[in-house]
């Protein structure tokens, strides 16, 4: 019971309060979950400026549609989906414009050697291990890393249940990463 209560005391509880009109709770929610939305947008290949617009739009969408989310544990999943949808919208529009535009598609490339040069050995090792994972695992673990820790239930809801399996996908990705970290470098 206690564990259950504690689990619920993170973003889900903030959202429940925000839905009841608590603006400070909403602000806190924005502070806690914006990093997740930022990395969702960036993982979809949008440049930094457009990613900022998309994150804001996702939050505005939440204000607009708040009442539709009955289960606070569904919040992270809802926000991830909404952010991705906004990203696809932007990409579709740009693709339509590309015939006339001089600007290339706004896609931002993966970090290059100059970005990695600034990392310490441990981070570089982790990056090398992550790079060996399949795309879906890379994306999933990137999102999991940015969901606040007390919200385990939200993580399960956001990432696993949609894929029809509670736990295995996330576990499989983490296990692969552990294996790469243990064996990959040596």
């Amino acid at each position, binding site marked *: *019971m206690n*564990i*259950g209560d504690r*689990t619920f005391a993170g973003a889900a509880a903030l959202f429940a309060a925000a839905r009841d009109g608590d603006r400070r709770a*909403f*602000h806190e929610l*924005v*502070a806690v979950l*914006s*990093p997740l939305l*930022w*990395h969702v947008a*960036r993982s979809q290949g949008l440049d*930094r*400026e457009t990613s*900022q*617009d998309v*994150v*804001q*739009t996702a*939050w*505005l*969408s*939440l*204000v*607009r549609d*708040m*009442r539709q989310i009955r289960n606070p*544990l569904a919040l992270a999943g809802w926000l991830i989906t909404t952010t991705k949808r*906004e990203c696809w*919208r932007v990409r579709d*529009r740009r693709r339509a414009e590309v015939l006339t535009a001089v600007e290339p598609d706004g896609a931002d490339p993966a*970090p290059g050697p100059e*970005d*990695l040069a*600034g*990392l310490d050995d*441990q*981070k570089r090792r*982790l*990056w090398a291990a*992550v790079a060996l994972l399949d795309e879906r695992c890379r994306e999933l*673990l*990137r999102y*999991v*890393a*940015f969901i606040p*820790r007390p919200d*385990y*239930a939200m993580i*399960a*809801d956001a990432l696993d249940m949609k894929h029809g399996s*509670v*736990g295995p996908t*996330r*576990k499989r990705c*983490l296990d692969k*990463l*552990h294996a790469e*970290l243990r064996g990959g470098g040596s």
Partner: protein
Amino acid sequence: MTSPFDTSPFDAEDLRVLDELRDLHTALDPMPPGLVECAQFAVDLDEGFDIARIERTEELAVTRGESARQITFECGDDVALMVQLQVHDDGHVRIDGWLTPPGSELELRTATSTTPVDTSPQGRFVIDDAAPGLVQFVVRTAGATVATPAIVL
């Protein structure tokens, strides 16, 4: 009786790697420092609005060293708002705008106030001397209220 979701699905090693992963992504691709503040400002709205998305941002040719940009917001096919922002030497900003459909009401929201903006019958408007900072536009048409994301002047 606890549900499977109540307990942590991660062991200590998982948590350590996830922490490192968060640090790694934060180092490689840090969230812009002003984004949270910007989003917090933007969401301080009453429910019952639709969203005018930023469809285009262009830097405009500058005159006398003053920088200018143009931003277009759209909500479906019905509502569009185009603003040209020109930063004066003192940091204040002149906003030249055009709003459609004409006859809609326009409000400028800042951190400290919400001000109605006069628009011409054709939907044109000028805000001559806006203070730098976060602003948001709210448009009220006959049928709907439409809000833009916040932008930094």
